[in-house]
């Protein structure tokens, strides 16, 4: 089998150039999806019979939770690829995915708390889903802290890749045990999300929002990776040429 495409994908130069081409389109699609999904969800989806309009927070809470978890797996996968194939780009992706994932996890927690107030009467309830999210946030913090603790970038990359992998093995166990713990204590009866029983009119905008968040995640990650590539490759010829070209364009504009 021909693996050159795989190795080419690991080249920072290839990544930078091809994303330069696709970024405008990606930004546009993300923006359209986000605006459409939000408008649909906030203005046009019918209100929930039990929860009223506070239910509309679902259109932010669920996509953010989805991407928070998917982002962790992406980060761990990138770390594993870095460990196995020693690919420069995958470590960069891993490093950049951590703060984005942590931000989305925070978002999931925040929207969950704000949703909890009108639904349960308090901002924080030890619900299984929310507790798992909190632990996920701690896992992200661990990876971030470990990454920044190393002065040697190489060692820091490897260490946080291993930690992300250990976390990945643990996430299903954590989720299952928190679920089990929750059934043991049963503090509340209303579940925040019950997707299967959702009316299609409510569910369709949610799908749009989830898709929008996936596109947004790709956009944010690519932007962050491009900055990191520039920083790390600042001494190479292609970056120099790029900078010279940019300054020449600026001169021409003036």
């Amino acid at each position, binding site marked *: 089998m021909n693996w050159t495409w795989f190795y080419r994908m690991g080249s920072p130069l290839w990544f930078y150039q091809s994303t330069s081409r696709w970024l405008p389109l990606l930004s546009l699609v993300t923006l359209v999806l986000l605006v459409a999904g939000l408008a649909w969800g906030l203005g*046009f*989806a019918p209100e929930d019979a039990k929860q009223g309009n*506070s239910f509309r927070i679902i259109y*932010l809470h669920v996509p*953010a939770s989805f991407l928070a978890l998917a982002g962790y797996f992406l980060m761990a996968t990138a770390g594993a690829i870095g460990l196995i194939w020693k690919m420069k780009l995958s470590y960069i992706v891993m490093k950049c995915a951590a703060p984005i994932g942590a*931000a989305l996890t925070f978002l999931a927690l*925040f*929207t969950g708390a704000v949703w909890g107030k*009108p639904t349960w009467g308090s901002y924080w309830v030890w619900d299984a889903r929310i507790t798992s999210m909190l632990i996920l946030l701690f896992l992200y913090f661990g990876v971030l802290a470990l990454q920044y603790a190393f002065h040697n970038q190489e060692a820091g990359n490897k260490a946080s890749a291993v930690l992300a992998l250990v976390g990945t093995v643990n996430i299903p166990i954590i989720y299952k045990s928190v679920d089990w713990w929750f059934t043991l204590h049963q503090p509340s009866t209303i579940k925040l999300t019950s997707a299967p029983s959702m009316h299609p009119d409510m569910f369709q905008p949610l799908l749009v929002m989830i898709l929008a968040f996936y596109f947004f995640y790709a956009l944010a990650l690519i932007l962050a990776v491009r900055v990191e590539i520039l920083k790390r490759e600042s001494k190479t010829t292609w970056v120099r040429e790029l*900078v010279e070209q940019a300054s020449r364009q600026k001169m021409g504009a003036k």
Partner: protein
Amino acid sequence: MNFQFQDLSEMLLMGGHGVYVWAAVLVSLGTLIWLVVSPTLQHKQTLKEIGLNLTREELRSQSGNKDI
């Protein structure tokens, strides 16, 4: 599919739940925008810094002066 509210002010109120919904929306949008804007600014900054380094190196090689 119909617009669920009489007018915009009612959409702002959301039957008493407006505070929660709009707080969630504002914070979410703020975070999302920050996640996109901050790397964009950093990108510009990095390009500028590399450019400065390049001109500095050029000047140094032209004049042979190591102090610049």
